[in-house]
């Protein structure tokens, strides 16, 4: 019950944040040089009157604050406007592209967590021994190598040289297998994974490296805790100490980092989608910027902003689940 109230409270707090995000983006997009109508015309000479008619049609002749309010009114009703460049509703464009991006980001995190936590624990347990040194080097390389470069190298090695994995595109598991000419769900699943593997590793490596170091430090601290000493003195097996007593208390910063790095991951997804030729939100965003497609830029910004805010809220809430010391706001 307290947790539910805390969740609602945090969601309410997200509203002013989102208003700020949309307002700033709206103003910045309008301050950017270039006139969208003229841009659409690709420099053709046309009647000034025609331009004004088009501007009127899209409401571009109205003052900025008015346009913002009209726009936000639409957003609240699920209307993100119309892409002037693509002549399609922004919502449709985004819905078509959000799936691959989410698939990519979520699997990158899954990869990062699945590797970072065991490796971090191993490094903590075997502190200053070969395993620890290897993990330190892996982390250093992972943090300092740009994700797109990792992507290119993975393509070179696994797709071009070895020919094991495809170099571009994704298979969407939510589409029926027949779309791809797959014989059944088995092949469909396999192909999904095969396509996902390289971009997932390319995007997830940075997160993996960061999380691994944090996990190691946290586990070392936790293993030196008095409560671990106490558990040992009461005959708790070392395995249980590692998996239960030391582990749980050590996971709190991991959750924080996952939440806060969401923005890095979404940013990284833009590059990875480019490298792997994936039709996701990131690529759509880049194209929208190049085409000065205001409505699309706004729409994607709102969606990514919301995803980030929701990510942070989920972080906070799971923090409250795991750490009993977190108060839910009303006690202070």
């Amino acid at each position, binding site marked *: 019950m307290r947790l539910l109230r805390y969740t609602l409270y945090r969601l309410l707090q997200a509203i002013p944040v989102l208003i700020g995000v949309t307002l700033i983006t709206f103003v910045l997009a309008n301050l950017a040089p270039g006139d969208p109508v003229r841009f659409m015309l690709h420099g053709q000479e046309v009647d000034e009157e025609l331009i004004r008619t088009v501007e009127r049609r899209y409401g571009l002749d109205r003052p900025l604050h008015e346009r913002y309010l009209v726009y936000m009114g639409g957003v609240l009703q699920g209307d993100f406007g119309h892409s002037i460049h693509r002549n399609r509703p922004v919502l449709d464009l985004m819905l078509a592209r959000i799936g691959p991006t989410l698939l990519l980001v979520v699997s990158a995190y899954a990869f990062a967590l699945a590797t970072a936590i065991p490796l971090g624990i191993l490094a903590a347990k075997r502190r200053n021994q070969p395993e620890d040194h290897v993990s330190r080097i892996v982390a250093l390389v992972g943090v300092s190598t740009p994700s797109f470069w990792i992507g290119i190298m993975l393509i070179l090695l696994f797709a071009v040289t070895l020919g094991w994995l495809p170099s571009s595109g994704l298979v969407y598991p939510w589409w029926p297998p027949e779309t791809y000419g797959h014989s059944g769900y088995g092949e469909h699943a396999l192909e999904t994974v095969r396509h996902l593997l390289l971009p997932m590793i390319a995007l997830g490596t940075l997160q993996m490296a960061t999380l691994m170091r944090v996990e190691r430090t946290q586990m070392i601290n936790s293993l030196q*805790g*008095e*409560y671990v*000493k*106490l*558990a*040992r*003195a*009461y*005959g*708790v*097996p070392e395995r249980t100490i590692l998996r239960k*007593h030391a582990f*749980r*208390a050590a996971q709190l910063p991991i959750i924080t980092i996952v939440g806060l790095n969401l923005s890095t991951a979404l940013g990284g997804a833009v590059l990875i989608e480019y490298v792997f030729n994936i039709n996701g939100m990131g690529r759509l965003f880049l194209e929208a910027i190049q085409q000065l497609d205001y409505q699309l830029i706004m729409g994607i910004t709102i969606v990514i902003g919301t995803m980030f805010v929701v990510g942070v809220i989920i972080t906070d809430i799971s923090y409250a689940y*795991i*750490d*009993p*010391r977190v108060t839910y706001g009303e006690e202070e």
Partner: protein
Amino acid sequence: MTDPLLRVENLTTQFFTEAGTVRAVDSISFEVHEGEIVGLVGESGAGKSVASMSLLRLVESPGEIVAGEITYKGRTIFGLEETADGSLSERPEMLSEEEMRREIRGNEIAVIFQDPMESLNPVFTVGGQLREFIELNRGLSKRVAREEAIRMLREVGIPDPEGRYEEYPHQFSGGMRQRVLIAMALACEPSLIIADEPTTALDVTVEGQILDLVDDLQEKYGTSFIWVTHDLGVVAEICDRVNVMYLGEIVEQAPVDDLFYETAHPYTEALLESMPRPDLTVEEIQSIRGVMPSAIAPPSGCRFHPRCRYAREACKRVHPDPRRVATSADGETHRAACLRHDVFESGYEASAPLEHATALSDREVERPPGGEGGE
């Protein structure tokens, strides 16, 4: 006399650091009999905690027990023997790590640590932690262990134990957490509890309550205690026999009354004088001069001689071991490691007093008798 519950002989624990070998515990011997509270007293760094963790064989790296023998209820917790090629190896009857974990830690020898704030895991409920240890050490089912945990929480004076069972450590006060740790120790039904400065982190009033509680429960359960502390006031209150440690060694060993009234070692004497007393102002309290020297390179001869007001030339040369200096009325031995006692025959009387010692004893003379007035 019956066999003691715990016998420690020449226990030596060292830490192998880059700066050198730290002789944290240097050949100490003591016994704990059934149902008694034995004090282990000394300043910080005297080796009390290392000694107590050695009893569970839980000395943390780079520390290691290098010599001595620990016998508990006739079983060998630690013991070395010389092999054919002259090197030392563990005796075959010495308990394995697995046996220590299963059969000794928790269910035979339990501990209470100093810091109740840190000793409980912040992310698990108090009841859950208690229940886990009970399950593990007494082989009870979850349900029975839970009932037992609640019973023990009530036993140590925690109000509404059913409700508080589900709460987390941060919802408990320091004194209440220390009660939880005491409940933990008793609930595993050990024969010996090592209490490592359990009241140091608490307020004086709470400390009093905890001491009373331990006194009552000790009587009720008949558990033996090793009470590690730097506070002679606490010792006077609850201990039966006392071991005074200085720089890794036991320097005096006596029944509690003898220790206070027939003090046989200058260090104990100094400790007693340095205790805050209501009739003395801060200036009048005789603090012990200097700091404890490093355990890497301890002073030659008697380790206390650089801070001792009775130190003479002989004290720099001869290293005293604790020897019997008196026997109390009920036949208990009083041991001290000080050359001033006749049993040592070290030529103490004949040797010249050391310069610093003269200065220290001069300071003593300046002090007005009976502690009246000031300087």
